[in-house]
Structure formats: C-alpha cells, structure tokens
C-alpha cells in the first residue's frame, strides 16, 4: 500500500506499507522519525502521542491507511528551527523532568496540546490532561513543574 501524508510540514510518500501497520510503525520504521515511542502499542501509555490533523492521538492506534492525506505533527516537529528548542522542551529540561526520557516525547506533545487549548491550566486540569501519559521514572512531580513553568512562559 502507498501512504502519502505530510509530517512536520514535509511531504512523505512511502510504498510497500503493510495494511496492518500503525501510523507509529510507519513514522518510526519507514519515515526515519523514531521520536514517537513504542512503550505499549495499545494506547495505554501515551508515549506515541502525535497530532493527527490537529488532534492529539495515540499513533499506535491509528491504522497507517487512516493517515493517508493527513497532516501529522510529531515531537520532532515542535521546535521552530534546527538548533532551537520549543519552550515546552526547554521547560522539561530545566525542571529536571527528563530521566530515562522514554515518556518525554509523548508528554511534550500532550503538554503542547493542553497549553494550546488551555494556556493557564489549574493543577487538576494539568493532571487530567496528562493522565494518558505514563512515566515510570519521575513520579510526575517535575513534569508538573515543567508544565507550570511552560504555562507561565506564555507559549505563543
């Protein structure tokens, strides 16, 4: 099957995709974008979170063909330029919210979505919005610090 979609602003055309592959598999193994992670492949951990046509989804639960013609944004597409970091990425780094980092891409995309919809979230709102992203290393405290500080920096 051929897959044609835009990822992080770039057109990708991939041939030979097996119909049962997920968008996550295509991103990682066929498009050279391994930033989205494969911690569970059942939608329980959020490590594969991406934007599909502007909506936050688990890419492991999107069938490859469903992304045909779609616009996908992954963690690799959030920074505005090659040598910069998105303010949310900066905030995660500065807060000590990254340990093994496997959950980090998914959390950064989910945080990006949260702050786009709700620029000044309360703590319960942050927790509810990030409840689909598991982290095993940090206990979430510094992730909360990172989200709060990213919100305070008033992301444009």
């Amino acid at each position, binding site marked *: 099957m051929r897959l044609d979609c835009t990822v992080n602003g770039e057109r990708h055309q991939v041939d030979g995709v097996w119909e049962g592959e997920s968008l996550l598999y295509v991103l990682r193994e066929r498009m050279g974008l391994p930033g989205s992670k494969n911690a569970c492949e059942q939608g329980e*951990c959020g490590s594969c979170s991406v934007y599909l046509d502007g909506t936050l989804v688990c890419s492991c639960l999107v069938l490859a063909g469903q992304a045909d013609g779609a616009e996908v944004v992954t963690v690799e597409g959030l920074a505005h330029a090659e040598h910069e970091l998105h303010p949310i*990425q900066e905030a995660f780094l500065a807060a*000590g919210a990254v340990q093994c*980092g496997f*959950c980090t891409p998914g959390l950064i995309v989910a945080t990006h979505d949260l702050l786009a919809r709700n620029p000044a979230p309360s703590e319960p709102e942050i927790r509810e919005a990030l409840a689909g992203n598991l982290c095993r*290393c940090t206990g*979430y405290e510094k992730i909360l610090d990172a989200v709060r500080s990213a919100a305070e920096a008033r992301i444009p």
Partner: protein
Amino acid sequence: MSGAGASPARSPVREGIGESVDRPDGTLKVRGEFAYSSDLWADGMLWGTTLRSPHPYARIRSIDFAEALALRGVHAIQTHEDVPGRKTYGLELADQPVLAIDVVRYEGEPVAIVAADHPETARRAAELLRVDYEPLEPLVDMDQAVEADEPRLHEDGNVLRDIHVRHGDLEAARAEAELVVEGEYEIGMQDQAFLGPESGLAIPSEDGGVDLYVATQWLHVDLAQVAASLDLPLERVRITNAGVGGAFGGREDLSMQIHGCMLALHTGRPVKMVYTREESFFGHVHRHPARLRYEHGAARDGRLVYVTARIVLDGGAYASSSRAVCLNAATTAAGPYDCPNAELDSYVVYTNNPPCGAMRGFGAVQTCFAYEAQMDKLAAAAGLDPLELRRRNAMDTGTRLPTGQAIDGPAPVRQLLEELAEMPLPASRDGGAPDLRELPGGVSNTTHGEGIRRGVGYAVGFKNVGFSAGFDDYSTARVRLSMASGEPQVEVHTAACEVGQGAITVQAQIAREVLGVERVIVLPSDTQVGNAGSSSASRQTWFTGGAVRDACEAVAAALLSRADERLGGEPDELSPDLIAELIGDDAVEETREYRPRRTEALDENGQGDAHLAFCFAAHRAVVDVDVELGLVRVVEIATAQDVGRAINPVAVEGQVEGGIAQGLGLALMEEIQLSEGRLRNASFTDYLIPTILDMPPVRAAILELPQPEAPYGLNGIAEAPTIASTAAIVAAIRAASGRELTRVPVRPDDVVGLAAPVA
C-alpha cells in the same frame, strides 16, 4: 602541598558537585532524537523474534520447523542445538537455558528464535513452528516448594538458598518479653514496568565477532555470558549500552543479547530484536513475591526484646539474583531498629512461576512492609504513638544488626522521623462542594464526599548499598584530558550504564570538580573500558563516581608532574591557560579502578559484615479512603531521606519522587496476577502503574550526613524511596479503615472487608 589525593587549587568551576546540572543527553531526549535501543537501525537489518513456551512446566518432545523455514522472508530459525558455546547463563548460577533444552520451566521461556525481513514475517514464522509439548503439573506454591522436593525443578532441590540468622538468646528473650505481636504478611509480584521495551541490535563483524548495542544495566556481566554462549573470546564481543528506557532491576538479566548475536552471526546480517509490551512481561524477571511470618517481643515500654521472622521468597523458575535477594531479606528483616535477640530465617525457592530477580529494593521492600506493620501493632499494644515506639527502638551509628555488623555510617532513624513529625499535615478538605478530582475515584464519580475517612501512616526503612557478602564490587574509569579547538577538554569513559538516573551527569560533574575544566564529554558506555559494575544496588554514583574522581586526580597529578618537569616546580593553581600549555598536543590519560572495603560472607549463623554501607529513608503518607467502596486517594507523601551528599540535587529529588511512585504502585495497584503459573495480566491494561492522577505531591526533606569512606561523603539514594513508601501508605489506609491489611497490593475488597476468593 599535602599528600596523596590532595590537589592544587582549581579554577572555580560551574556545574561541579552539588549543583543541579542539566543532563547532557536532555536536549536529544526532549527533541525526540535520542537513540534508544529500540530506535537503532542498520543497513540490511533483519528482525528477530522469540518463540516462547505457553506452558509453565512441560517437556519438549520435538520441534518441527520445516514449515516455518519455508516461509518467504525467513532467514534463520535456531534452537538450543545452535548455541555455539555454553548453553546456559545466569547472574549467580548459570542455570537458565539460552533456549530451552528438553523442558520448559515457566510460561514464556524462550524455545526458539527466528530472523526474518519484517517483524510480521518473523511473527508468522514463529506461529508455524510446531513444538510438541507434554505439559507437566507445575509447582506454583512457594510454601510447598520449601517443604517438597517433588517435582524437582533443578538438580539441587527446590530450595535455592536458605539463611538462618541467630542473634542473642531467643529462649531467654521470650521469657523476658511482656508484649508479643505476631503477623503474617504477603507481597504480590511487582514488575519493573520500564517503558522502553527490551531491545537491541547485533551486528556481525569482520573478525568473526559481533558488536551488540543493547539497553542493559551491567555491560561486563552481559559480556561474560554472551561470550561464553557464543564461544567467542571476550575481545571479539563488543557491547555498547544503547539508550535505556528505564531499568529498575529488570535489565540486569539477559534478554535478547545472546539471541540477537546468535541470529546475526548465523545470517551474517545485523539483527534487531524489540519485545512487545506483552512479551516484555514474559521477557524479564520480576520482584520476588513473599510470605513473611513475624513475631515481635517487647518490654512494656515498647523496647524490642526479640524478633523472629520466617521469610519465603518465590524465586520462580531460574536463579537470577535470588540468592542475593534472600541475603538482603535476611539481613534487613528486623528493620532499622536495635534488636537484641533474633531468629531470622530466609528462604528462596524454585517454582514454575515466572523467574524473579532484581527490582529496586531487592528484598528490603518485602521485609519493610512486614516489620513496619509489626511495629505499628507493637505501638498499639504498648499504647504508644507509632513515632514514639520507633524512636525508642531506633538504630544509631554503632548499633549492631542481628548479623553482628555494626552500622558505622550515619543511622539517622530518629532524625528522619523528627523531620516528618515537624512537617505540617496537609489541610483537610473543606466542607464545600468538592472537586471530584480531589476525591477517591476522581472523575469516575464514585463519591461526593460520602464514606471518606482520612488516615495518616508512617514507616521507616533501610537497605544495604552496593553488592555484598564478599563480592568483588568495583568500577573503572578512563579519563583523558586533551586540547580541542583551543580549549581543554575532558573525556570520561566508563562502562557505567545510564538508565535514566543521571549517571552521565554526575560523572561529568565530578570530572569538572576535580580538574576545573568546564568542557567534559562522557563517552558512550561500552566494554572497551573496564568493568563498572551494575547500575543497581544504589551503587553507581559511589563506585563509578569514585573511579572518575580517582582517574581525574591521577590526571591532575600527571599534569603537576609535567609542570614540575617543564617549569621546575608544581604550580599553586592549574588554570585553563596552564593546562593548555601543559597538554599541547600531548593528551594525558589515566585509568583507575575504585574498590572500597571488602565485605564478608555470612557464616552458618548468619553472622558477618556482609554489607558495605546502609541507606535510610522515612515516609509519611496521608490518604483519603472511601471506606464503603475501598477506594483510596493518596493526598500527600512526605519523606525524609539521608543522601550523604547530593551531587545533583534535582536528580536526587527525581530519584526520591520516582521511587515513591513505585512504592505507591505496589501499595495500591501493581501485581502480576498468576494462576497455576500463567500470567493473567501481561499488558498495561491490567498491570496498572500509577498515572499522574494517582501520584500525590511529594514533600521531601533531604539530609546530607556524610557517609564515611564514600567519595564526597555521598551515599546511595535510588532504592531508599521505594522501601518504606509502600508500608507508610498501607499504614495510613489501616488508620482510615480500621482494617488489618496484611497483603499488598491492597485491593478494594480488603479495605471493605470482603474475603478473598479461594483460588
């Protein structure tokens, strides 16, 4: 100038010891560009997969792979017959087959491996493998395994190890005790549940050897096992630690290392293996489930007179690190208290349950849950506040364990409890309309305030730091100082595995501190440098930090010699300009091993200085319990922990908070559920780890009481947060519900008072 180890003044350096330095790999990680072992790729790469036993115990009559091999895209299928060298491996005993030989002893045991051009092809091929099993009756009860020798799972019987600690005079103690409390406790099987799946890439090399990139915790122990099974000399197997997505003990044992290399060497192509999440639950060891029976005897004023404990740990099908877990349980069994008489018996047995091994806390978690429950019972019997009872019995520096070993470092049990006692409790919920998210059950709308009682619980725990009982534990560091683009640059090369904890960060901090050079690069960890030991036992910052320090000091000394030779005298200060002049084109490189004081094995009465050092942490948990539904919300966890010296304060806090989350998981929700040796919940749908909605705020008091003999006075920190947090949470639930709660994870049934169904 003073003697050995002293250094001349360094330029004041930023990002040295004691600062919350950013992780050097952080930028790559937040950009999604950090290469984890599951992200690796090589030209011409094949995908490997593992066929695993569906039975917990069975004989293998035959394996027929003609049909599978004929599938287009399949390049190789291998069984135990294809293992070139030693057919078994293991951390302590080489009792675990690389691929099953004639019998499988646990559900999920690897039987065959397949290499194919696409993971889907490999899976289909594995399905076509015809294995003829003769299922056998599995041995699944740990108590039965202690008593019965049939079925005999391994040659030397089903009791893998038993340790008997005898301290004082128990008979006299029993006569003396005025208060006696007993209890039986059970800990379910917890899983490390690291997020990065087991994975790696094996690339055959031209010299007939292999280059392996794998997520692991201990490169050199992997190397020894891989080389032995591949029948290759050590120099022809080169292992690099690829990016690790968390470990917590679950990567100390081999996963795909030998399998990937076998397929790569056979096919002549790179082979990548990535476990699925479901496979991961079968693919690594778990925390030992345990049954503990305790009796505490005390004087009327609550002072301990004796402790007896019978601890049984279910080691599952293969030995892994069970023998060491058994020892840790035995030596921590009486808790961080002054215990004048004790009989402590610790057993670890083989069963056909999944193999158990290292998980953060390593035997000390299980004993802590039991002894802290006992201490609360004793407090109640003595009419004392739980903190007071603990204060009266607390260890101090100099207190002897029931094994005879005196704690020669800080043993700040009272101090940690004082810190907690001084922390104000969180405000109670006000009477107004509650935000559902602040109630047990959350947005699932199970209560609007009905049935809620608040409870507070305390617990204190301890554990050894470093490997024990005479093990030759050490680390190695190679440090090279050179000029790069006109600036001095330090390269630090160790085999210490970064698993998320920040090993690479602290190595760089120590190098900066010693050498006063800002630019420090920590090279990838691989087997091209000497052994660093395991990233476990809370030891890596101590041991590898010590090796880095020593190698840096050797580099500094070498520089001073050069200065002496060239400039006729040692300078008072090694400024960057002077360093640049002394280095020029001629780098300075030193390699050092760091080896602290040797520990001793225990004798037949469980006596001996078996441990290097100890770490202590105390916890206070505040919970709201819906006593009608048995649902729990943890409101706050406060902790006080002694870390010796915080090399990187933010990283220390990260370890504390993360460890507490795992303790919370064991208290409330995490258990591998087994039925006759079969896993019932091998997925994140039903093996539940805490989400951000389950974790409360953590309030931490970090103490820095210098650990003698350790570099910079630091102490191991990573396991202490996981040891007593479970016990504190359950104590709080007991206070709220009035239930005895002798088992973790606590289920709603237990809180409500419904009996467990008979299995």
